Every structure is written in C-alpha cells, then in structure tokens.
C-alpha cells in the first residue's frame, strides 16, 4: 500500500477531528495523524512535522484556519492544505483558496468527498 503518510488535522472540536480522522482512515492509505486545535498550533505542528497533508477548520480560536493556511503556504508553497469549511464561512474559504489552499471539504462531512480529496492529493490506488 506504500509508505505511511502524515496528515495534520486541525480543528478546535475534538468531535470534528474524530469524524475527519474516521473518514480519512477509510481511504485505504496508511496514515499517521497529528492533531491540533487552533490555527497557531497548525502552523507550529506543520513546521515541526512537515506532514503530507493538512486539514484546517476555518473557524478556530487564536488564529483562524484561513490565516494559518496563508502562513503555512508562505513557509512551504508546496504544502497540501485542505480547508474544512462549515456553512457560513464562504468568504474565509475564498481567502484561503486564493492564498493557495489546494482544496476544501464541506462540513458536515461526506465520506465520498473526503475520500476523493485525500486520494486526489495523496495518491493511492
């Protein structure tokens, strides 16, 4: 199945992180998860672990997801940043995509959409 991929999941809700990890785990790729619960942690954890993919919630304390995405992409333009967008955060989502986020998933999550995004960016058969 190939090498283990590192995925950083950042959301201030432990439930949302669990749901996202459950969904990603069903993609048939071996994944090591790293978790953060605010935007600043996302930036710090990214720099520390250099994960293969980052999922960022938009509405987070300390630093929102769109700002975190921008900072991560400034330090590593090849970062694969995926925004997890709740309804009502379209403008921030747009900002994040403009800053270079590669894709987004809509919350509440849809397994097929998560699979599609993960496989598109992390490969896998």
């Amino acid at each position, binding site marked *: 199945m190939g090498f283990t991929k590192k995925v950083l999941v950042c959301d201030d809700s432990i439930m949302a992180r669990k749901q996202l990890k459950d969904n990603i785990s069903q993609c048939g790729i071996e994944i090591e998860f790293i978790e953060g619960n605010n935007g600043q942690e996302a930036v710090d954890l990214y720099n520390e672990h250099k994960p293969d993919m980052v999922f960022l919630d938009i509405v987070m*304390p300390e630093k929102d997801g769109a700002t975190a995405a921008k900072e991560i992409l400034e330090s590593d333009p090849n970062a694969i940043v995926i925004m997890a967008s*709740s*309804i*009502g955060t379209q403008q921030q989502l747009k900002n994040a995509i403009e800053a270079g986020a590669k894709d987004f998933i809509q919350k*509440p999550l849809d397994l097929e959409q998560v699979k599609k995004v993960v496989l598109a960016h992390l490969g896998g058969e």
Partner: protein
Amino acid sequence: MFSQFFGSYLLRKEVITSEQLAEAIAKVNESHIKLGTLAIHSGYMIATEVDEVCYLQTREDKRFGEIAVERGYLTEEQVSELLQKQTPYYLLLGQCLVDIGAIDNTELQNYIIDYESENELIDMDLSYESTDKIKQMIERFFMVAELEVSDYSVMYLELLFNNLVRFIGDDFTPLTPFPCSEYPTNYCVSQKLSGQVNCESRIDMPKEVAVEFASRFINEDFDEFDDYVQASIEDFMNLHNGLFIVNMSNSYSIELSLEPPAVDAHDVLEFNDSTFILPIIYPFGTIHLLVSLGDK
C-alpha cells in the same frame, strides 16, 4: 417545485445511479398513501378506523380521504390539512433511497443540507408547514412574551426549529421565550457572531441532557458527559449559526462572521434587556437557548 429536482441533483452529484433513482421513485409512489398514519398521528382517527378505510379501499376505487370523509372520520378540512402536512416529496424520495441502500441516512442528511443550501432553500420546511405560518407563530411567541419582535430574531428561531427537526428530532416543544437578566448555567456553550448586527448566542443544558442531545446529533450512543459530547454541542451551535449567517446574507445582504464556539464557564450569566431565553423541551430533557440579537 424544488422537491422534484432533488433526484436530478443527486444524479448530477454522482451519488446515485439512474437505476437506483428509478427504483426509489417507484417506491415513493408505493409509499405515497400515508394519510392514515398522519390521521392517527394527528389524533383525528384511531387505528381501527384507519384499518377499516384501508379495507374499504380494496372494495371500491376511492381515495383514503374520500372514504374517511364519507364515513365521518375526517372532515374535508382535515383531509386538506393532512395532505399539506405530508412529507415533502424529496424527503420521501431520499428516504426511499436509504431504504434501497443507495445512500445512508447520514449522506441523506448531508445532501439535503447541501441541496437546500445550493438552492437557497435553507429556511424552507419545519414539520412541513408553510414558512409564513411558522413566522406568525414565532412572532406570536414574542408578542405573548411582550418582547420586541425583530425580523432577525424570528429568522434565527425559525432556523433553529428547522435545525432541531433536521439534526435532533421533531419531538420537541418550544415554550414561550422570556426576557432574561440573570441565568444560572449548567453546561453552556456560547458563540458570537460579529459584523453589521450584534449577536450572542448560547445553548445551555444539564450534562445528562447534553449526552442525549449529542447522541442524537452525532448518531452515536454516548453514555457519559465527555469531551466528545461537549464538542458535539459546540459543533451544533457552529452549524446552526453558520446557516444563520448564510440566511442573513441571502435575505438581508448582511455579512456576519463566526467566532469559535466556547464553553461559558460563568456560574451565573448577567444580561442586558435585549437577551431572551427560549426553553425547548425534548423527551430527554430541556435545553435553553439564550439569544441577544439586534442592530449595532
């Protein structure tokens, strides 16, 4: 007319095949006659009367409502009322797609949200009554409570009721809201919405009620008040307020942004005049919604 487009929406999203759609549509037609169930549910007929009418339908080619009226079990008005109450077509269709295994309930829930949101239908259905009726009901709520009615508050509550129906269950009873200056908290989650309109929202409930509320919202059986339960209540608020922001933007071109939901650690909350409390009773307990909403 939006209901009729739900099937084609699912096809376009490649969620289902055209064969599955055809199978589900066939099932929708089969499961169309539910007037009897609705009549029992509304208390207009008892089960034996419904059985009798169903039996008579095997003897004469008449509709359920016609026979029920002839027999004096229902009035014409009650028949039209029940027909209006009937599940919207797209929900029935969605349910049939679940029944045949084309999608699961979670997918149905998500696609309905997406479908409604894509079509700007977010505030459409509450127990399948007309939205005008719901608005009037909510306005009456405020009048009874002698609270100032604002369009935003009405919209907020209308959406809340919709979201409770969608995500928690329709077996709730809202009580009349009342103004609040002081409130002792249980487990309280707050979320601020900032922008052209001030909005502070809170949902409060005892821990054991939160366990049940989260179990319904996430479709998992939680048995203790843990971090997941707490996060689920925050997620509910986030989803609800996110939809409210979309509605405000669509209806009033008012742009708001969400701050992250947070646990309110105060034992007692103190408010100004514009905050109201809305108690909502579920079979598993009562939740309280505390809202302050007004122009800047």
